[in-house]
């Protein structure tokens, strides 16, 4: 069995305790992973003067794959987001956010299985903002042809490799004819290479309405950065909230898998939060590493523990700690429970 070397970024707040629970489960799945721990986030500011130390960057560049816990992003003022910095530094252009109904959680839908492909590096996240007078601020929305084409191409390739049938582009090109128009044009150009896949487009506001009325109609969605940020959380809400939402940030050479929820600092050290989002991100990582059997074992055990409901965390109606939930999944995998 091949050994994988993976950078572990525990993050902040509840991140370290979540990541330890997730490591316990992944290590028990039979996969051979050497974890190399590195630091990221506000705690690094005092020690190194930066949210993302060079040592962390070099380690990720060496290992090419990382699993990351949550970090804290200041709102309005202060330092930039460590998450966005990571995506920029490694050009992790594809943010892949599956929204799949977990069978044991009761939701108003019978079927949701959407994969969102969010462009991860451009749009209003290009960090080009100015006060152009003392009462006017502007933020440049930067959309490029190559940036748009490659996320569409990536989504179509993913769809083809995973037997998905439909890929749709989400945009507002009726209003933003240059920027969203370019995004849509590049999507249509990329689509020509995949004639077996049904393609189309939907305006972002209509897409939101359709998602809450009839989410089962959607398969794969390709979105510019800002719409992607918003709609992926909407989709997460449809299937059980951010506590079960995995995320992957994928570039040409590096991939970082992470939960998309915050670091919940008020719960730090209490060992009560649900580690499932990082765990399902870890399952995505294992599939990316071609460790499908280990991924399937963990997923099956997690579903079983959730279904039994005896060792689940408070957010899904239980009283188990983070560690007890993780241990219950390990026991289930090992046939002890």
């Amino acid at each position, binding site marked *: 069995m091949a050994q994988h070397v993976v950078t572990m970024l525990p993050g902040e707040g509840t991140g370290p305790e979540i990541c330890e629970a997730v490591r316990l489960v992944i290590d028990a799945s039979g996969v051979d992973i050497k974890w190399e721990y590195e630091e990221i986030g506000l705690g690094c500011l005092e020690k190194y003067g930066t949210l993302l130390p*060079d040592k962390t*960057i070099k380690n990720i*560049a060496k290992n090419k794959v990382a699993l990351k816990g949550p970090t804290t992003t200041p709102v309005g003022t202060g330092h*930039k987001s460590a998450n*966005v*910095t990571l995506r*920029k*530094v*490694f*050009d992790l*252009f594809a943010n892949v956010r599956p929204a799949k109904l977990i069978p044991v959680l009761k939701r108003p839908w019978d079927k949701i299985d959407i994969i969102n492909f969010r462009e991860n*590096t*451009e749009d209003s*996240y*290009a*960090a*080009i*903002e*100015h*006060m*152009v007078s*003392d*009462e006017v601020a502007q933020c440049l929305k*930067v959309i*490029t042809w*190559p*940036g748009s084409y*490659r996320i569409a191409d990536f989504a179509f390739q993913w769809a083809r490799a995973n037997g998905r049938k439909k890929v749709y582009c989400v945009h507002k090109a009726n209003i933003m004819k240059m920027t969203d128009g370019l995004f849509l044009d590049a999507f249509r150009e990329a689509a020509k290479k995949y004639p077996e896949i049904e393609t189309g487009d939907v305006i972002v506001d209509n897409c939101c309405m359709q998602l809450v009325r009839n989410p089962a109609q959607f398969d794969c969605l390709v979105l510019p950065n800002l719409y992607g940020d918003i709609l992926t959380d909407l989709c997460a809400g449809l299937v059980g909230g951010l506590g079960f939402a995995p995320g992957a940030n994928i*570039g*040409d*050479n*590096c991939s970082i898998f992470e939960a998309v929820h915050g670091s919940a600092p008020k719960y730090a050290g209490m060992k009560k939060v649900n580690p499932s989002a990082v765990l399902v991100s870890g399952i995505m990582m294992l599939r990316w590493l071609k460790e499908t059997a280990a991924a399937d074992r963990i997923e099956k055990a997690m579903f079983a523990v959730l279904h039994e409901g005896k060792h689940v965390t408070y957010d899904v109606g239980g009283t188990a700690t983070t560690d007890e939930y993780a241990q219950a999944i390990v026991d289930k995998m090992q046939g002890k429970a």
Partner: protein
Amino acid sequence: MATTFSEAAKATRKKKVIKLVGVDMYIVTEEGIPKFPDGEFGPFKCEFISNRGTKVWPGFVSPDLMMVNWYRCRFMATGDVTDADVDTFLAVLTKKGWWWSAAQKLWTHDGEPAFSKAY
């Protein structure tokens, strides 16, 4: 006294002390990351260059990074400058053959930067 929402909103405006401190230049080039040697641009000095919002000079640039032919080049003033200095600076850039798509003056508001940094 304000009588409409628009008038009420305008009345809340806080006047700020505005000072010119630099210029963001948006350069189009197919020749890779531009180089702007110190001392060739009068009272302005290039502080950083970004592409699609990611800093590409100075410092580490990921070999993975995809760049396009449009660079934001931040020039900061080395001392007090005026709008006329910016006019001269733009003329120098044009004379040196740089094709620029836009210029954005950078100001401080009450001493605080009124512009973002690159990632």
